[in-house]
């Protein structure tokens, strides 16, 4: 089990692959992961309890209870608004880990994998662990490095178009809403008298601030379609032969799919990490979780305003949310190895 240097036929001789040629094969693995058969996927599934993923909560401030009397506003002492009292749970993202039930390529006859030079004049077939050490482990690390890698998922506030990405679903996975201060009371920040009480929209009268969507990075987004040198293998007649391009692609794909789904410490995983009121730290990772896309921010308002409203001898007063955005929780979709 070690990193090997495979050999290939360069057109006139057998040559060891250069570091850049090996890197190209790792990038080819990333490209293959972008194909439709990848085992690790995030899907939009509203109301399915966020399988494998933590839920998110959008919180909103609500208006305080209304008070009234028959003589004057001064006699009212309306209670404060309620910080984050209303909420909507977003458990719309499911993680599937083993789509297609990938299997690990067998080392049939102990000659399934490429040849390398063991010592002068001695060619030896790589083991499957050699393949992991030489190509697959590094390819997995590329996939979880936080950049837009083929076949991985990210969050964006873009609703319809995001270059090099395909939207998973037209519905958002999270909507940050706040009390509609502008719509209800014009964004008043000081005590004012307005003919809006009793409230027609109730104490929780939200407006959408930002919607967040799930996107998948397209195949070829990272490195285009990497062209690679195909290594040599030996066959059962002890010939030195070059894999066909499709054979070698199938071999790489099998190993990276299996690794991403099942191989301990190289399983590709996603989850939402959160900082703030609804804090959550990822703990099952073996690599540093990397953020994928825009942070999902749950905001509320940071102040309240007293509204007075006189109808005949009925003096109503109520505190309503107002002010500017206040971050309650910041959620981030993260990708990592476990």
């Amino acid at each position, binding site marked *: 089990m070690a990193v090997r240097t495979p050999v290939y036929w360069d057109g006139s001789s057998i040559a060891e692959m250069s570091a850049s040629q090996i890197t190209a094969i790792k990038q080819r693995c990333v490209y293959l992961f972008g194909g439709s058969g990848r085992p690790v996927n995030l899907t939009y599934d509203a109301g399915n309890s966020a399988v494998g993923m933590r839920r998110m909560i959008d919180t909103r401030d609500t208006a305080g209870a209304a008070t009234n009397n028959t003589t004057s506003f001064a006699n009212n002492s309306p209670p404060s608004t309620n910080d984050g009292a209303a909420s909507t749970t977003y458990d719309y993202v499911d993680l599937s880990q083993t789509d297609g039930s990938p299997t690990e390529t067998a*080392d049939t006859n*102990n000659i399934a994998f490429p040849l390398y030079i063991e010592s*002068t*004049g*001695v*060619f*030896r077939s790589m083991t499957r662990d050699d393949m992991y050490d030489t190509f697959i482990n590094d390819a997995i690390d590329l996939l979880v490095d936080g950049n837009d890698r083929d076949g991985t998922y990210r969050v964006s506030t873009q609703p319809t178009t995001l270059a090099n990405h395909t939207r998973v679903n037209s519905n958002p996975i999270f909507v940050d809403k706040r009390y509609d201060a502008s719509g209800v009371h014009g964004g008043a920040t000081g005590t004012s008298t307005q003919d809006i009480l009793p409230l027609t929209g109730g104490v929780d009268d939200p407006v959408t601030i930002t919607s967040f969507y799930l996107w998948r990075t397209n195949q070829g987004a990272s490195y285009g379609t990497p062209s690679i040198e195909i290594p040599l293998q030996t066959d059962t007649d002890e010939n*030195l032969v070059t894999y066909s391009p499709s054979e070698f692609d199938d071999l790489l794909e099998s190993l990276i799919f299996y690794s991403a789904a099942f191989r301990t410490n190289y399983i590709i995983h996603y989850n939402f990490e959160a900082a703030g009121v609804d804090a959550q730290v990822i703990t099952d990772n073996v690599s540093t979780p990397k953020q994928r896309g825009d942070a999902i921010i749950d905001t509320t308002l940071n102040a309240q305003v007293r509204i007075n409203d006189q109808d005949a001898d009925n003096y109503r007063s109520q505190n309503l949310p107002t002010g500017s955005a206040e971050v309650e929780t910041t959620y981030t979709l993260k990708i990592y190895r476990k």
Partner: protein
Amino acid sequence: MAITVINLSDPISTLVTKTNTVASDLGDKANLSTTDKTSLVTAINELNSASNIASQVETFFNNDGVILDVGGFHADSANIDSAHITSLSSDTFNSNTINIDGVTVSDLKPLQIKNSAGTVVLAGYLLSTSNVDGTL
């Protein structure tokens, strides 16, 4: 056959007989198959030239079916158009002067192929294009 010797004491008749014997032993130079029949000396000299001997040997072995079958053979150098050698060995085999498809036999290198378990599945030699150790 004894050598004919004329003694001082031989009578004339014996001298005649022995002289005829000598003449008979030498033969008739007109019957020489050489080009030059002037004398036995010139005829022998004609046969003794290297080019003539080489020509005669080449003519002989150019006939189909004629095989040189010898118990031993030594040559400082040779140029053979084609040959089948059943067994070839040498204490001083000079691999640097033997070429196969333009590659000298000195570039013959051991070659093995092992499977991933380390078992040798092929062991032999590779005629390399390089005489550098470690370079195929």
